[in-house]
Structure formats: C-alpha cells, structure tokens
C-alpha cells in the first residue's frame, strides 16, 4: 500500500521564482532537515532558513505543500492573534492569508480590541501557490520530495543513559542517509495515522496521501523512549455548491473593508467587492435521527481516544447536546472552486449515511457529496518531554512541532513550526536556544502550556488561555515581537524591523503628544460638543484622559490640535487602543515582572529532585520529579507546590548557576519586556 516515491528534486515548477538546482542536489549534509510540508513544516523550514541555516524540507508530495487539509479559513478569535504574531516574526501564513483570502472579517468587533479575531476564508489554490512560491524563493532552502524511513540518532551516551543526538534521516529507497545537525518533525496526523469511515479503517494521515513510514514512530517510541499518546480528529464531506439550495440559507457577508493579517500589507489581494459570502443553516431533528441510527456502523465514534471538545463531529454534538438545533456554516473553498465546506458537519459514518444526513437539512435536501467526511486517529508525543525551545529534552537536535505535539489547527501548528525552525537553526549554528515567554505572546502561552502542562485532548488556542490578554493584543504584535525577532532571534528581515521600529517610535511620540495637549474639562466640552466628562481634580484633562471616553476618538482630538496630533493620524486606531488599554496593562505589569523573573530562572532538565541536598518534603520532590518544570515559574504553577519549596529551589538554582557559569547549553529564557 505504501506509495514509493523516488526522491525528486524540485526545480521546475511553473511558479518557481528562483528555482535552485545544481550544487544543492548532491548535498548530503544540512544544518536543518524539516520533515513534513504542512503548516508547521513550511513555517519551520522558512524560519530556519531565515535564521541562516542550510535547510532541507522533505515532503511526501510537493504538490501538497501548503495544502489546507481541513477548513478553508485562517485566523479567528485567539487563532487570529497567533497569525498576527507569526507575521510579526516574519512567518508566512499572514501574508499567505492576505494573498489567498476571499472573505475577510474581524470577529468580536464589538467586544474590545484585545479579543478582536481577524479571520479570512481562503482560496485553497491561491494559498498553496503562495506558500510554495515563498518557499522556493527562500535562500538556503531546498525542497525534496520523499518519504522518511528512519530518523538517525547517535548511540546513547553511556554517561548519560537515554540521551541521544540527532544525526540525520534516511529516506525510503534512499541509498545514502542525509545528515544534519537538527531535525524538525512535523508529521501532523501521519504518525501511525489511521483513517476511519464507517466501519472501514485504512492506514494514513490524510485521504489521498500515502501513510508515513512506521519506522519513524518506532524510533520515537523504542529508540528514544518517548511517551506517545493517541488523539483523533475529523473532517466533513465536501459538498457540490450547485446542489445546495442557497435560497434556504442565511447569507453572511464579509467586512466591507478587508483588514489584512500582515503588518506589511495595507490591503488584501482580493478586492473588497470581489469577496465571497458564507452561508448559515441549521441541523434538524432528522440529522439527530440519522446519527443515532448509524452509531453501530461508526468505528470512529466508538473509539475511546480523545477528540477535541470544541471541534466535535456532528455525531458527538448531537449526542452531548441532544434535541437542539446546531449551526452549520457553508464556506466557499475558493474563487473558482465548485465546492462548499460545511463547517460543523464533521462526520465519520459510511458515505451513504453521510448523504442521508446532509439531506435532512432543508437547504441540502438534494446535496451531492464530492468527497466524504472521515476521521483520523494518530499518535502524538506527550509534549511535556520537550523544552520551551521545542527540542526533545532527551535528544539533542530533535525538534517537534504541530499536531505531533497534541495540538489542533493550522495556526497552532504554524506557531510551533516557526519557533521549532528558529531553534533548530540556532542549535545547528551553535547559538543559544530561545524561549518565548507567556507574558509576551500567545505563541509563548501555547508552548508554555504544551511543555508545562501537557495535553489531554487536541490543544486549541483560546484568548482565555492568555492571562495577560489585555497586553497581548493583535494590534500590538509587531511591537511585542518584531524588534526582538530581529535583534535577538534573527528570523526577521531588516525591512520589517525598520518598519516596526518606526511604528513603535511613532506610537510613543503620539502618546506623548496626546499627554501634552491639555484643556479644562469645560474647554474640552466646548470643543467636542455634547460629551459628558467627569470633573478632574485640578480641572484640566489631557488627550490621553479624553481617549478613555468611548465617544472620543483620536481623529476628533487631532482636529482640535492639528499641529500636535495630525502627524500621527496614520496610527489613530492604534493610539485609541493604546490610550484605553495602557492603564490596564500597567496594572498587570507587576505580575508580569514577577512571572518573567521566575521564568528567567531555568531549572536543569536532569535535576535529581529525589536526592537534592536541600530540605524539600518528599511530596514536593515527587511532584517535581514527575513534572520536571523547565523554569522556576513553571514550578510555581504546579498545583501542590509550597512557597517554602520554591525558596529552596530558588536557592539551589542560583547556587548551581554560579557554579556552572561556563558549562552546559542552557535554554536562555529571554523575557525582556
């Protein structure tokens, strides 16, 4: 069953911008090898190359690089935050979304800028083209078609049993191994993946693609001794658009003015008037009936591995919340596509029953299915075995990103991919590994949650996971991340850096200018018309105070003080937001500082907690031994930790740090504000 592909070097795809051939073909040693061409793999490869590593991306089919395997959309609440942060670090997906989007909207527009959710429906074809052309024009990056047979690791060091080092990979049919300093595995659902539809089960990670080689899974489990768990997910059937009764659905129109994801773009590729609508319809009691009648024919539902609670199949939705109408969104698949994607109708029953179910919905009463829905079961590596750099603790040079770490979603995968790529490159170039702090970014929250707490179900980003949500907004991702991405991480281009610095400085100046314009509340009222202002103590209010009132905008103030404020009109929306949020962010800053201080103290991964020569209770020792926190901050978040134990740990860590100042590779937790 295994499709055997000969290694094929990519050099003449039609849209290839600067196809690279020649000397790279024979290259048998890379700094970084990335396995997998999904959202995690493409971001990882591009990031590694940006940092300066000679990078090889290996994928089963070059044609599926950048494919959107599931829903044709990007962003949303929480996920949109990730896209903005990826873009701030010069990742691909933001710009790809701007290129491929056919329906843009900011979710949560009325709920406050901290939780705005930029989202777009995408044209699948355009998205893939953009990602492929970006990768092909990235210097230092080679793309190779092939299947990885084996991960090569060095023999475990007798002094450090269980510790390995990555040396490269072996391809199926590859005569020689390809060597590298780092390997990033982004195998998605392909790690021991099996597909479920009705009562049939076939090995694989995505329909139409060959399964990945079982050798990789074996190496991870047996050679490296990694703990592996099993998760499931699924995708809905794709419906022929013509067969849908569009007169029976509600139309959802996009924003009139599309907002780009990328900080570099001022507009989207799709013109505002060319955007496509989405459609909303609902399930009926008939749908529930079909689900109940088909349960005995549905292997996927009967499996007890964990699926996501927030992206459940229609089967689990009606079983958990019976007797209700559930929403079904019909989303366009692209400008030229004749298909609709029914969001909310993931199902794994036999195809004939899928059709019966769909036709219970009035608008779909004569629907035709192009490809049926199916479920996937796959292995993931328990992510608590990783460092915040996304390197496997026990294996130097091995990095994991995406669904292999137990997450779900394009954006979550891309975020890990970028960060794993950065660190894989830095490890290969002998630079210190880096961590992103949860006080600074959603990517940091994501990774910290994964490596600190692990997962029990596919992990998806929600804004409620970020305790510093007020500070981590989609609007300020560039200021939070771009300067550091350039100065310290090395994954950001000079052009983007300069722009971010310009924006940062202008915002600072703009805020200072706002502070400098003061009038008495009476005078403000005269100038602004009928606005209710509370009397201030000394009678005068400055521009920042005024922006606290929801009816006052920067534009209104700029009209009163054009000489002071009009230079900053370009940033009026961001200044409005900054002015309102600043006091709240300042309130959080003490807590942030405390967290950062504790995060900056890393605990050695191989610490022997059970015999640590310090007075810790045996309960605490066992707790620490089991969780093995990466930093003192992570240790304080372990339920059951006592303040006394933290003091002892602090003491121990500082003493050890003094002793080992010159030795060992430590994860440098950089959390500078």
């Amino acid at each position, binding site marked *: 069953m295994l499709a055997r592909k000969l290694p094929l070097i990519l050099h003449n795809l039609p849209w290839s911008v600067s196809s690279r051939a020649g000397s790279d073909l024979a290259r048998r040693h890379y700094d970084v090898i990335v396995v997998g061409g999904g959202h995690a793999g493409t971001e990882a490869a591009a990031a590694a190359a940006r940092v300066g590593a000679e990078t090889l991306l290996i994928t089963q089919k070059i044609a599926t690089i950048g494919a959107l395997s599931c829903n044709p959309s990007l962003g*949303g*609440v*929480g996920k949109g935050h990730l896209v903005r942060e990826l873009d701030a670090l010069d990742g691909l997906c933001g710009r790809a979304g701007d290129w491929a989007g056919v329906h843009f909207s900011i*979710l*949560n527009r*009325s*709920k*406050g*800028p*901290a*939780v705005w*959710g930029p989202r777009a429906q995408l044209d699948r074809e355009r998205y893939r083209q953009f990602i492929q052309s970006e990768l092909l024009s990235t210097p230092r990056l080679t793309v190779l078609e092939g299947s990885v047979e084996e991960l090569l690791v060095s023999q475990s060091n007798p002094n450090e049993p269980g510790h390995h080092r990555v040396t490269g990979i072996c391809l199926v049919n590859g005569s020689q191994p390809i060597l590298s300093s780092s390997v990033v595995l982004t195998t998605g659902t392909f790690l021991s993946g099996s597909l479920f539809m009705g009562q049939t089960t076939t090995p694989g990670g995505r329909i139409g693609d060959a399964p990945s080689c079982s050798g990789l899974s074996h190496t991870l489990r047996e050679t490296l001794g990694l703990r592996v768990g099993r998760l499931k997910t699924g995708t809905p059937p794709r419906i022929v658009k013509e067969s849908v009764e569009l007169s029976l659905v509600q139309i959802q129109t996009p924003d009139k003015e599309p907002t780009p994801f990328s900080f570099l773009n001022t507009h989207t590729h799709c013109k505002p008037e060319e955007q496509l609508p989405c459609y909303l319809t609902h399930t009926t009691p008939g749908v529930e009936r079909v689900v109940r009648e088909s349960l005995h024919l549905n292997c996927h539902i009967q499996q007890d591995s964990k699926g996501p*609670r*927030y*992206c*459940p199949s229609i089967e689990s*939705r009606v079983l*958990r*919340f019976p007797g*209700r*109408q*559930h*929403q079904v*969104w019909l989303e366009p698949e692209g400008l030229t596509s004749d298909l609709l994607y029914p*969001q*909310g109708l993931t199902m794994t029953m036999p195809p004939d029953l899928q059709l019966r179910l769909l036709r219970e919905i009035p608008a779909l009463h004569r629907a035709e299915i192009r490809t049926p829905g199916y479920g996937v079961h796959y292995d993931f590596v328990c992510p608590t075995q990783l460092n915040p750099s996304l390197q496997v603790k026990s294996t130097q040079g091995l990095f994991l990103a995406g669904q292999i770490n137990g997450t779900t979603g394009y954006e979550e995968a891309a975020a890990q991919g970028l960060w794993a790529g950065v660190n894989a490159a830095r490890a290969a170039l002998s630079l210190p590994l880096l961590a992103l702090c949860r006080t600074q970014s959603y990517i940091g929250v994501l990774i910290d949650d994964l490596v600190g*707490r692990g997962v029990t179900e596919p992990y998806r980003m*929600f*804004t*409620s*996971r970020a*305790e510093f*949500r*007020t500070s981590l907004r989609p609007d300020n991702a560039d200021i939070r991340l771009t300067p550091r991405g350039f100065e310290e991480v090395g994954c950001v281009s000079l052009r983007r850096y300069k722009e971010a610095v310009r924006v940062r400085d202008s915002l600072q100046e703009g805020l200072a200018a706002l502070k400098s314009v003061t009038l008495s509340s009476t005078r403000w009222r005269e100038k602004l018309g009928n606005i209710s202002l509370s009397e201030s103590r000394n009678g005068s209010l400055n521009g920042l105070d005024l922006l606290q009132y*929801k009816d006052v905008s920067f534009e209104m103030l700029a009209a009163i003080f054009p000489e002071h404020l009009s230079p900053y009109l370009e940033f009026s929306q961001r200044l409005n937001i900054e002015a*309102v*949020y600043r006091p*709240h962010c300042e309130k959080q800053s003490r807590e942030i500082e405390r967290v950062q*201080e504790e995060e900056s103290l890393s605990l050695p991964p191989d610490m022997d907690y059970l015999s640590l020569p*310090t*007075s810790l209770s045996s309960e605490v020792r066992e707790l620490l031994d089991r969780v093995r926190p990466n930093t003192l901050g992570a240790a304080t978040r372990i*339920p059951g930790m*006592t*303040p*006394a134990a*933290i*003091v*002892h740990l*602090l*003491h121990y860590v*500082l*003493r050890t740090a003094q002793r080992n100042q010159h030795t060992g590779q430590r994860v440098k937790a950089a959390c500078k504000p």
Partner: protein
Amino acid sequence: MRCHGRCGVAVVRVSGPASSMVLRNMTGLTQTLPPPRTALLRRITDPHTKELLDRGLVLWFPGPHSFTGEDSAEFHVHGGPAVITAVLQGLGSLKGVRPAEAGEFTRRAFHAGKLGLTEVEGLGDLIHAETEAQRRQALRQMDGELGHLYQDWSSRLKRCLAHVEAFIDFSEDELIEDGVLNQVDSSVHRLQTEIERHLGDERRGERLRNGVQVVIAGATNAGKSSLLNTLCQRPAAIVSPIPGTTRDVVEASLDIGGFPVLLSDTAGLRDGLDSVEREGVRRARQRVEQADLTLVVVDSTQLPTEPKQAPTFLQGYLSIVLPQPSGGNPEEGREATSDRVLLVLNKSDLVPEAQKERTERELRESLGLPPACFLSCHTTTGLGDFLAVLQSRVKTLCGNPLSGAPSLTQARHRAHLQQSVQALSQYHQYRNHDLALAAEGVRLALTHIGRITGRVGAEEILDIVFRDFCIGK
C-alpha cells in the same frame, strides 16, 4: 506587608516603594521621616479614621539598606490579635498595599542580593513552619461555613467568567444566546453585594476582639464590676485579665462553654442620665455598638415595686444605655436589640421573692424586651440559669461565620475580598463597550478569591465553557 511572630510584641513589616507613604499615613509623620534605622515611639493610627490603634515603635529603613533591599518600614506593636488585626486592616486600606505572599520578602531579598545562602535555608524552614500553621488554620476555616461561603463565591465567579469567555471566544460562530451576558450581569451584581455585605458585617468583629465580644453596660451602682468578677471567678472559666492598653476599659478573656469570649466593662456609663460627661457616654455607646452581645446590668432594687410597670421602666433604661437605632423601622431595631442584649437584674437577693416572680412573669409576656435574668452576684443565686442563657447566646454567635476569631489569615482574606469587590466594578464599567476589559475584572476578582480558596486555572474555565455550551467550531 507582613507580620512576624505571635508573642508579646508583633513586628509588622512593610516593603516596597510606597513604604514611606505608609509610614507617614500610619503615624501622622507628615513632615519628616524618622532617622533611618532608629526606633521611634509613635501613636499608630488608622490612616482614614485617625483612630488610635496602638502605641509602638516604628522604624524606617530606606533601601537598599533594608532586609529586602527596598524601602521598608517596621511597626512594633502589642502582640494581641486585636491590635495586629487593626494595624493590618489600616495598612490594607491604603492604596497599593497588600499582604505579602508567604516567602515573598525572602524572595525579594534574594533577588536584591541581600541574603546569603544559609540565611535562605533557615528562612525557608521558617516560612515552611509559618505556612504550615496558616495552611492548617486555613483548612479549619475552609471546612466551616466561611469556607463554604468562599467556595461558593469562587465557583459562581468561575461560572461568570466562563460564560463571558464563552461569549468572547465563541459567540460569533456558535449559538450562544445573548441572554448569557444578562445572567452574568445580575450574578456579578449579586456577588458584589454579598461580598460587600460580608465585609461590612465582619469589620466590627475583626477589629477589636479575639472571640465574641461581650460588653457589660449599665449604671455604676448596678453591679457591673461584680458581674465581671463573678464571671471571672468561676473556676470553669479560664481568665486572664488584661488592663486595657489603648482604651480605658477592663477586658478579660474567658472560655464560656468552650467558646472564646472577650468580656469588657465599660467605665464610660458610670454617670447618670443628665451627666455632663458626654464624651464618656459617647465612647461607651460606641463600644456597645461594636459589641456582639451587651449585658445590661440593672439594679433590681430600682425596679418599680409594681411589676406591671417593670417593662416600661426597662425600656426606658435600655434606651439610655443602648445606642438608638438610626432611622429605619423601630420594630426591626427592637428585634435586633433583643438578639444582641441580655438584661441582668442584679442584686436579686435584695428584692422580695413575690415581686421577683411577678416581675419575671410580666417580662416574659411583654414584647420587644430582651431576655432578662434575675441574679445575685453576691449570693450567686441565679448564676447557673444566667450562664446557661449566656452560653447559648455565645454559641449562636460563634456559629455565625461572621463572628469567627480574627487572625492574620483572616486579615489576608479580607484584603483579597476587598480587591475582589473592586475588580468586579470593572466588569460593570466596561460591560457594554469592551468585554475583554470587563472579563479582566471578573478574572481579577476570581484571582483574588483564588488566593483564599485555591488557584483557578484556564482549563477549569474552559471545562465550564464546554460543559455549558455546545461549541462546534
């Protein structure tokens, strides 16, 4: 701020940039700070009411020459829980001051490079002991009604937050009814009211007493002192008379039926009705106002010989001795009075038996009077019955979660509850135009309650979201 020790002298330590402000506000040193690291005897007052809390030593340690390396100040006060609690409450009412977390000073000191490694080792043990004690104490409280109350608030706040979060993260795509937020509005409002009421009720109790505060009031020759002595001399009672240090009242702590009682004799009412000593009367009344239970002592020989007139006489007597309920329904006021007052008809040995019996009957039948007991401190006749009534009263009061013994832990709870209420007002402020900032208010409130009941993680909130809503996208 942080308090060390539970002995004769308590040291309350304040650290951080606001320390000099705190020192000024608590000691009335408006102009200059004390010379660094020099003990100064000062009156320590409540920063808002200016009420005298204690006289004690204050010290000023400008950073970096202090324990933590930051500006800090110390208050050396009398070690009784009442004084400590009052000082902590005073501090807590200042903006930017909060109780230190266990080990926080040590950590700060360590970060400032002020502590050697051995010192940390030693302090670690100390903190361990302290937190162990606090933990056990907290556990005891958490088992009781107070614990249930806090847990209930915490779980209601959790639910509020989960519903707001569900609305933020999912309402654009999912069927989440708009009514969800309206429910949260009223829940948040109810919580605010309840916590505020709790704080208001608790304040009196916490401020001055270590146990149920019982005040003896009445005219001088009624036999108040005899009553105090009689109660104190009972062999079953554990008595430790403390001369008042800050107020001219005599206090004794007793153990009545296993419950801690702080008995005090108000000297301020020693004069008659038309006395010029208004200040004395005022203070005594204030004292009575703050008491959990007032024993109004009456000289039985002064009772009208006609028993039918006794209720009217006693009403008049009470209205002089007790503070008048300000405004409101007189019926309600009377009810509240009878819960908090016991009439002690002393010198019963000097009243004819027949008059005593008939008066007792009249009093039982008359409405609106607190329970009355005939008693002779001299012969101890009637003492058994009186003690039984007193004990059942005290028991009821102790069963009331709001009358628990104050402690450092409670002062900490109080501070967190206050911050929680403040945070909830942020919810209402932003509810209509920035739900993210409104949610932040609920999250802060939950964090503060969580410092009492245990931390609430994001996963718990998500659990509620997925339990209560069908999220499909």
